[in-house]
């Protein structure tokens, strides 16, 4: 099946720093989604991004489908950005999403 690897696995930042999270996937896909799971377990959809670049406030994402990777940029990080970030891609272009290994982010004041 499709492999979805994220890096780094863990990231510790001071408030105000910028970061880049990476998602690599093994097969071609027709869409990709980024999620943030907060410390209380709630999964929030950040981006639905099959290709190209999207921005939402301090967050932006870029997917290069032909090279099988996506990047999530967090600028001017805040303590509320802490949690685990997952990317997810569809299995064989079905609606079944396969989640990556996750990046655990801790932002300290």
């Amino acid at each position: 099946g499709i492999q979805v690897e994220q890096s780094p696995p863990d990231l510790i930042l001071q408030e105000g720093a910028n970061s880049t999270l990476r998602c690599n996937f093994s097969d071609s896909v027709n869409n990709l989604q980024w999620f943030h799971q907060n410390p209380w377990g709630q999964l929030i959809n950040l981006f639905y991004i099959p290709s190209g670049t999207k921005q939402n406030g301090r967050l932006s994402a870029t997917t290069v489908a032909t090279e099988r990777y996506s990047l999530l940029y967090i600028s001017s990080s805040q303590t509320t950005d802490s949690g685990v970030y997952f990317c997810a891609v569809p299995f064989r272009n079905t609606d079944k999403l396969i989640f990556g290994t996750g990046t655990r982010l801790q932002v300290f004041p």
Partner: protein
Amino acid sequence: GAGVSQSPRYKVAKRGQDVALRCDPISGHVSLFWYQQALGQGPEFLTYFQNEAQLDKSGLPSDRFFAERPEGSVSTLKIQRTQQEDSAVYLCASSFRQGGSPLHFGNGTRLTVT
């Protein structure tokens, strides 16, 4: 409703008991998904529905797990004869249409089997 609603929020079951977990998707969302998340892991797919049709149940761990969505709205995930390895967070998600649209998750049900 405004978001995906799941109940109960927490469930403690003795080994061997049956449990039923409820999911109320966002109104108008055609697709509904169930995922299982073990501690420290990412969500793992269990099953999904398009309206009332269960299109994929390949992720259900055993025949003790059963899901239904009889009227194409509310869904129930039932686990019979629970075992300790069933302890996990069960997440429900919905999306507007089939074929690729953003997935929105509920808060999950944390199941603990003692």
